[in-house]
């Protein structure tokens, strides 16, 4: 049947009405619908689609609004009329969308004072984008990886000559003027300035500084290759010089993997004349040269933070190798846990989202464990092939942020689900005694990385228990109370799942060592 409603002398915008006609046709039982003003065009359309009844032709004039519907029943027509009313009165409640300019030129028109670019475009385009920013006197944080070393060199030489920063490539963390960029934690303003060639290592040191009640002046990232011979530590040099000249920086902390020897000497020579204390953490490196130059070498990322804070406060320096909870308490806890384990349980599995943290953990434990199999092994012979899909072997540490795990996926700090699955898989292994994980919070990271991980821990522990084993899960949370995810909330969530939660990566490895040492 064809039904018609006419409203005399009512006006609605024709485009609105076309949209409504389209929506009406989607209703169940509606075969054809036309909602419109009685213009010549609409009358013609009504004829073409079989809606022009004699009633229509006799009554609809160009000043009238009409609803004509071919439908199955009166009820359907009533529903259609109701729908028309609803759509005519619909209010848009969507938020106004922000304008994103498509080019740097466009961005400069929006804000002519731009002075820092965060670049995370695909690697093959990243150098061009970075250079265009440098051309405009804008400092660069280059998060992108897969930038060639030649490109990095060209960018940094230009930047160094123009006294601009190129933090990266593959730089995940920086805090400039107390603004956390990309993956970084909320750290208070303070007297410690950092220049770092590592991402999560930087987060670890700056977070512990915050946990100890101090803060940072600047945290400058350089990217992992800056201290290689090809690049020559250009950004480490630029950053270090700036911190030396910065009146707000009282203590300087340098963090990197062990650099090329001549670069290390060059950097340490600048540092020794800094006129302010410099703590150096070349992760797993030899402290001799550092100490020979009169600088302070750190034993771990955590130790670097403790020493920087001590220097800032004028307190005596000592290597920090303790447990925040107290050494006796930690020892008792480790002993109790080890006592609950089955005979078959012998090995630790370290599953990390932060590459530097994974590297540090292996370096801290390698002397005690002998071999640690990994996708980023300390010794080539300990390379674990097929790490993503294959099984773990004895003591195994995996960096989930390594290329093998990130093909077609976001970084595990953004999407930690693959790591959570692995916790469950390895929990089933009768030889697995301890699962060690990091949980990195802060800006850039997943909005609640503890949720996924605590579920996995709960499941893994329960399944081991069913098999008559006790699975120990140790987690270090890297972050601060001020982070959006909140340090204490994150810790509580993991503790509630039965994990042993420790405030640093170094303490987590020490605790694992204590558990393994207490196994029968």
């Amino acid at each position, binding site marked *: 049947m064809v039904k018609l409603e006419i409203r005399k002398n009512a006006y609605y915008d024709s485009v609105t009405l076309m949209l409504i006609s389209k929506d009406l046709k989607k209703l169940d039982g509606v075969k054809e619908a036309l909602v419109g003003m009685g213009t010549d065009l609409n009358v013609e359309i009504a004829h073409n689609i079989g809606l022009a009844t004699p009633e229509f032709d006799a009554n609809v004039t160009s000043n009238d609004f009409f609803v004509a519907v071919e439908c199955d029943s009166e009820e359907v027509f009533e529903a259609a009329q109701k729908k028309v009313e609803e759509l005519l009165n619909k209010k848009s409640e969507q938020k106004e969308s922000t304008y994103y300019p498509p080019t740097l030129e466009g961005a400069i028109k929006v804000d002519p004072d731009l002075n820092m670019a965060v670049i995370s475009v695909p690697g093959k385009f990243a150098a061009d984008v970075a250079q265009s920013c440098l051309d405009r006197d804008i400092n660069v944080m280059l998060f992108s990886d897969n930038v060639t070393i030649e490109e990095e060199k060209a960018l940094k030489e230009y930047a160094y000559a123009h006294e601009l920063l190129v933090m990266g490539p593959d730089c995940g963390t920086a805090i400039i003027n107390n603004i956390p960029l990309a993956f970084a934690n909320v750290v208070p303003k303070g007297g410690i300035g950092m220049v770092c060639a590592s991402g999560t290592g930087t987060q670890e040191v700056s977070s512990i500084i915050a946990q100890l009640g101090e803060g940072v002046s600047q945290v400058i990232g350089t990217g992992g290759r800056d201290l290689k011979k090809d690049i020559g530590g250009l950004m480490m040099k630029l950053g270090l010089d*700036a911190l030396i000249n910065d009146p707000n920086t009282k203590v300087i902390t340098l963090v990197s993997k062990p650099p090329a020897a001549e670069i290390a000497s060059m950097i340490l020579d600048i540092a020794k004349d800094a006129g302010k204390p410099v703590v150096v953490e070349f992760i797993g490196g030899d402290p001799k040269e550092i100490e020979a130059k009169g600088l302070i070498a750190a034993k771990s990322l955590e130790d670097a933070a403790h020493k920087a804070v001590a220097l800032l406060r004028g307190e005596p320096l000592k290597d920090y190798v303790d447990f925040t909870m107290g050494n006796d308490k930690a020892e008792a806890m480790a002993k109790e846990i080890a006592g609950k384990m089955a005979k078959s349980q012998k090995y630790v599995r370290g599953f990390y989202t932060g590459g530097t943290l994974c590297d540090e953990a292996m370096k801290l434990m390698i002397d005690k464990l002998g071999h640690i199999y990994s996708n980023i092994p300390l010794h080539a012979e300990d390379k674990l092939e097929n790490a993503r899909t294959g099984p773990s072997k004895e003591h195994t540490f995996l960096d989930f942020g390594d290329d093998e795990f990130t093909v077609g996926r976001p970084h595990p700090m953004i999407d930690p689900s693959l790591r959570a699955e692995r916790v469950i898989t390895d929990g089933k292994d009768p030889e697995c005694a301890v699962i060690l994980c990091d949980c990195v919070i802060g800006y850039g990271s997943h909005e609640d990385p503890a949720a996924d991980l605590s579920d996995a821990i709960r499941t893994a522990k329960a399944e081991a228990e069913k098999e008559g084993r006790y699975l120990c899960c140790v987690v270090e949370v890297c972050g601060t109370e001020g982070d959006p995810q909140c340090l204490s909330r994150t810790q509580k969530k993991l503790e509630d799942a039965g994990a042993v939660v420790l405030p640093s990566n170094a303490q987590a490895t020490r605790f694992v060592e204590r558990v393994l040492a207490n196994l029968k």
Partner: protein
Amino acid sequence: MSKLNDLFAKELHVVNFGIESFYKDLESQRVPAVHVDWKPVAGGDKVAAGNLRKLKKPELLEKIQEANKEALRRILAAQPTIVGVGIAGEVIPGMTEDTILHAGPPITWDRMCGPQRGAVMGGLIYEGRAKDIAEAEKLAASGKIKFDPCHMHSAVGPMAGVVTYHMPVWILENKAFGNRAYCTFNEGLGKVLRFGACDEEVFERLRWMEKKLYPVLRDAMKLKGEIDVKVLISKLLQMGDEAHNRNEAGTSLLIRELVPSIMALDIPEQDKIDAFNFINGNNHTFLNISMPACKCTMDPIFDIPYCTVLATMCRNGTDFGIRIAGLGPNKWFTGPAEMVKGLYFPGFDECDAAPDLGDSCITETAGIGGFCMAAAPAIVQFVGGQVSDALNYSKTMYEITVGEGQSYKIPALDFRGSATGIDLLKVIETGIRPIINTGIAHKDYGVGQVGAGIVNPPEECFKKALAACAEEWA
């Protein structure tokens, strides 16, 4: 002290390329930040990126930028003015009885889309050269008829854009440069020749327009003298039109200009009333004024060497064609015309549509139409968008133009001048294609308009033009 120490003392203003959440994090901390909706240069096309690099070598780039500035100066200096009406064959340069002008870049009969074929056949019947469709089709295919783009004859035509010898046309003159442009009278909506309809109803209307409407407008314009179209376009942009797909205000403004002169004519009252009602009953009357106004605005930029500004964008339902000012009027760069994304009249859908068609995107070329969507937010509903989308469409166009209008201003953007002078280099660099508001023709001739929406030119024509520029100048 290095420059880096100065940075430590400043407020950080961050620009973010890539992962949007890094920007959101900064925004949530109230850090001044701008996110760039980044795309690789030329969509990652290596050849195009290479050509762009060649053209952006400093010495050449300087010449190009100077040339483009001059183009913008000329565009903004234009004074499009209606100076009268005439009969196509008598006023359009190069027009003969065997010539049929059409929209878009050059095309042969066998490649024409449905509505353009319909309009050509209809045109031949209207001219009395064929008595029916069959005869018209034979004649069109015979090689006796010369098909030529409107654009090669100082003319423009909406949709099929067919102009035949006896059709009446508006005559516009760019008073600043003395060049003219021509366009037929708009026939209204529904079954009309420009959408390829070709039945007796169409011919009857066309004949009435020639015999009755034309003399009224001719005599009225003689009385009136001239009508400054630049002023009308400036006004209509403040009244919710963009002069391409929405012409309600423009048509009303035109009526205010014309009616006193029509009233003053010594002709039968009924002829005046009929003429008035016809114009009044067709919201798109003004489209056929805004198009030649833009055409005569753009033509004077053709002889500027090294100019990379688009002088023409047009389409024939098969190809989309552009011309680059610095390469001259005889070089066309084409790519396949795209389908229009839009809203269809009840009873029709995407399957019924012909590809993008008509010379009407000369309006966007000159900086109005889709480029002024922010001035005509009602248009954005055609694509199911919100008013903020209309604002963003217009804002985005500033990224690919040489400059901004001085007379054509957009109230919702704080009366910012509209984005004007599309720069080929910027289109390639940003990957942003011009936005065009347009009607949708049925793919078969004889049916007419089936909807309206928005469309972009194909990338291909820009890449071809870029290659030609690089070859010529680099």
